[in-house]
């Protein structure tokens, strides 16, 4: 069913589509493009995202985000930390984001070089012999970690926004 309605075949199968509704929809589309257009900056961001995609490292997907556990009506309490888990095979990265600072742990408790990648630069930190690491305060924006353990290939986490 999904496949049948994918792509350009939509609309024609819907009995509620008539000339008046198509005209109203088109009119509203034109108004939306005038009043609520896609911000021009997003094109630059998308190009940067493309340039920054990593080709050599394994991707660690987000497997837990404490923000997903909050109820829909709860409003952020002051300074509440966000907990995230990323996993790529054996490598698990746990991260706490609190007031723009990252504190984390790489599974296995092995030393690792960690690069905090931002859209316009990178910060290096080192995970100690227990796999723990921390950063100073970071500006808001997209971020990912590139983790190079002492043994094994590099892993990058998926992007998050802090």
């Amino acid at each position: 069913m999904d496949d049948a309605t994918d792509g350009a075949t939509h609309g024609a199968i819907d009995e509620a589509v008539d000339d008046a509704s198509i005209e109203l929809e088109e009119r509203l589309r034109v108004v939306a493009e005038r009043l609520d257009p896609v911000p021009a900056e997003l094109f630059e961001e998308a190009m940067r995202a493309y340039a920054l995609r990593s080709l050599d490292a394994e991707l660690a997907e987000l497997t837990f985000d404490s923000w997903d556990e909050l109820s829909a009506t709860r409003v952020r309490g002051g300074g509440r930390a966000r907990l995230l888990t990323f996993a790529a095979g054996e490598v698990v990265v746990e991260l706490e984001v609190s007031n723009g600072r990252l504190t984390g742990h790489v599974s296995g408790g092995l030393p690792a070089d960690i690069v905090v990648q931002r859209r316009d630069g990178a910060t290096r930190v080192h995970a100690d012999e227990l796999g723990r690491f921390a950063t100073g305060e970071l500006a808001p924006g997209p971020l990912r970690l590139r983790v190079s353990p002492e043994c094994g290939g590099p892993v990058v986490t998926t992007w998050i926004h802090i």
Partner: protein
Amino acid sequence: MDDTATLVAAAADGDSGAWKELYQRFSGLVWAVARSYLVNAADAQDVCQTTWYRFAEHLTRLRDPARAGAWLASTTRHEALRVLRTSGRALPVGDLELLGMDADERSPEFLLLEAEERDERAARDRALWSAFEELPERCRRLLRILIASPRPSYQEIADGLDMPVGSIGPNRGRCLKRLGVLASRRGVSDIRG
């Protein structure tokens, strides 16, 4: 026009022209999904940014590259809901009364339009947009994604809303009918541009 799967494969292979074309094809959808959940434009922009970074990272990893649009819609929705849950600006999902109120917020779009009040067409646009903002939340969300440019597929709209694809068509019809009634109350008799 190349199909989406071909563009995804080319972009994954390093063809930045293909990436640009994917952006042209889906940036309207991504923005519309973010806006359908987030009244605050800066929040919506952050969400779109994250979505494009994730998409670049997943070019070689999509299970079904032909459905990249649906992947983008669903990723944007998840990210928007995260922001909605944690932002101080969050509105309870499904609260129609509260959402009715932001039609009165003087957004930059409205201020811009006021400057053009003498322009008859701008006034008509404004009336239609006000009618749109008066719609119940469910309708507003659905229509906001539907009117992305270029027009998304029903599958993409369904993934942006986490609704069954079969419900999109009937809801589209109902919501546009409601919009027509609200618009005519505001004196938008001629909806033609």
